[in-house]
């Protein structure tokens, strides 16, 4: 793969992030007068004026934008209106908790979803396939917030075996991970199944069988590497839905992560924190898609060539 391909991809990712930064600026200004939002409608005009002066809200909009952009690039994203700490710091201390939940969820999703999909495809139209796919549709149909509450009701309230809130022990992971991984694993199972089915019908699979390669090796060495290409493509969406699912799940289980912070910050009108959180989510999505793009070219030699020709 060519170096130019990388540079171009990275450049595009940076451009996307710049657009998102601008979008956040515009969206937050459109949401009304920040000073009024913080102090409420009853505030006296003198306090409002002091606040506007302090946050630079009384400058012309283009000047505010230039200051904002230069601050962003200096890593200064403002202070939390609530406790005056650096917004970046407030968000950063929540990241490890969110990440640890995401890793576990991603591992469970992939370890269940992909093998289930492969098995379904290999035993296409049998009982095993139908049972797996019925379960997948069920898993897909249950909304996150409902499953979470249902689990709390059963395991915490009725049977009292699992903690309903917090993140202190491995027991705390069980319900949030089930809540998030159910729908994700279902998506992966269905997608893997259809990808595998399509690949297994390709002429090169027939060639591999005809040249005397044992079936297990045909699956492992010929079908799976090809099926991996479409599966990696949805991994980009997967990261996105993990983040979105995380916001809901963290709130249901009072998980002290970024998702929960986002909701509290929105409720408290802590604009700087909201801004940092959104930027963080955007950057991780863009990065995930960049990685998917690069992995795609690495897995499929045809794409690799196509892309270097395109440049």
């Amino acid at each position: 793969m060519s170096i130019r391909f990388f540079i171009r991809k990275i450049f595009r990712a940076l451009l996307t992030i710049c657009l998102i930064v601008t979008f956040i600026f515009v969206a937050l200004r459109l949401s009304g007068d920040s000073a009024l939002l913080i102090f409420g409608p009853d505030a006296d005009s003198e306090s409002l004026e002091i606040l506007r002066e302090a946050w630079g809200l009384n400058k012309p909009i283009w000047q505010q934008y230039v200051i904002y952009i230069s601050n962003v690039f200096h890593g200064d994203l403002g202070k939390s209106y609530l406790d005056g700490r650096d917004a970046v710091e407030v968000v950063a201390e929540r990241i490890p908790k969110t990440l640890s939940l995401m890793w576990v969820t991603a591992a469970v999703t992939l370890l269940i979803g992909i093998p289930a999909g492969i098995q379904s495809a290999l035993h296409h139209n049998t009982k095993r396939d139908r049972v797996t796919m019925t379960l997948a549709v069920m898993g897909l149909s249950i909304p996150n917030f409902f499953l979470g509450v249902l689990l709390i009701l059963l395991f915490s309230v009725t049977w009292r075996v699992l903690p309903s809130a917090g993140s202190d022990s491995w027991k705390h992971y069980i319900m949030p991970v089930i809540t998030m991984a159910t729908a994700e694993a279902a998506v992966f199972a269905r997608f893997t199944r259809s990808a595998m089915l399509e690949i297994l019908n390709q002429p090169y699979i027939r060639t591999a069988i005809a040249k005397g390669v044992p079936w297990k090796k045909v699956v492992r060495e010929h079908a799976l590497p090809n099926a991996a290409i479409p599966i990696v493509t949805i991994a980009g969406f997967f990261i996105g839905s993990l983040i979105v699912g995380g916001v809901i799940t963290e709130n249901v289980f009072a998980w002290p992560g970024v998702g929960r912070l986002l909701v509290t910050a929105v409720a408290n009108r802590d604009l700087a924190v909201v801004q940092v959180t959104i930027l963080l989510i955007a950057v991780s999505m863009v990065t995930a898609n960049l990685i998917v793009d690069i992995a795609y070219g690495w897995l499929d030699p045809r794409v690799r060539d196509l892309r270097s020709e395109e440049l």
Partner: protein
Amino acid sequence: MNEKLTESVIKSQRAPLLQISDLTIDFNTPTGWIRCLHGVGFEVYPGEILGLVGESGCGKSITSMAVMKLLDPRARIGGNVRYKNQDLLTLDENGLTKMRGRDIAMIFQDPVSSLNPVHTIGRQVVESIIYNSAIPFLNNKVMGKKKTEMVKKHQRVTVQAARIEAERLLNRVGIPETKQCLKQYPHELSGGMNQRVMIAMALAGRPQLLIADEPTTALDVTIQAQILELIRSLRNEMEMSIILITHDLSVVAETCDSMAVMYCGLIIEKGTVEGIFADPHHPYTRGLLASLPRIDRQIDMLLPVEGSVPAPHEMPRGCAFEPRCNVALNVCKIRQPAPTTESHGRSISCFNPQYGGFQV
């Protein structure tokens, strides 16, 4: 000509390499089982190139797929397929894996999509050599933990040997830059080159029978001639038999020793290529040959075979060709004609075969 005649003489003295008799194939469809092959029988003799000819959908490809057991496992196969007195239809998965590539190899119509797009040519050819050649490979089951190191070393050596063999094979099938080619991916090569790679992979196990399923249909005419020439020369060099499946009679005339004409899941005429081209007996074969442009005769108009092939679920009770036949008798509507054998291995399934006077 001479070569072909001696072939047919040798043929009568030797035992067939592959003997197919009464082969039937049924597919399960939502409306029930549909029979696509109605009892096909033919023999392939050592060193012979047999052309299996017919329109698309007549069952030539599924016949060859049944021999290799490559059909959907839900298809029902009946009859007998004997390869050197071994019944291929009763082989278990293990036996099939051993047979495929080593005894019988196969090449396909579209070489580009028949090669795995994410593996290099080298990897695919080496794989074929590893699974089929005489180079000793340690079975995974033998691997004890202590021996692993030794086995790894051994495998490296054998993979190296397989690489050298792969280069030799690619060289043999006429690929110029073999070292370069081993590193390339199928999409980087032309169709003709890919078909050469397919042939090289098929040769890896030194099979005694090669099934070529329309190997040149997807290629342009000059490449087609080169590939056919390659196949012919390989037959002579490696003394293997070939089943060449095609719908192109000119390919048969150029390449094959004997031929079998299929129509609607049945073989309606078989014999030597000269025999059938000089004097086709079955009205369908006559029609096919009459629709060919000839360089040796002045023809004003090409004659098509009128009508179309009946669908598998509405096959007539009698002879399948009866509705399109211009010499049909009353009996043709009622019963299917059984194959009758004549001299030189010629056989016809027809109640009213035509003799002599074949002139377009």
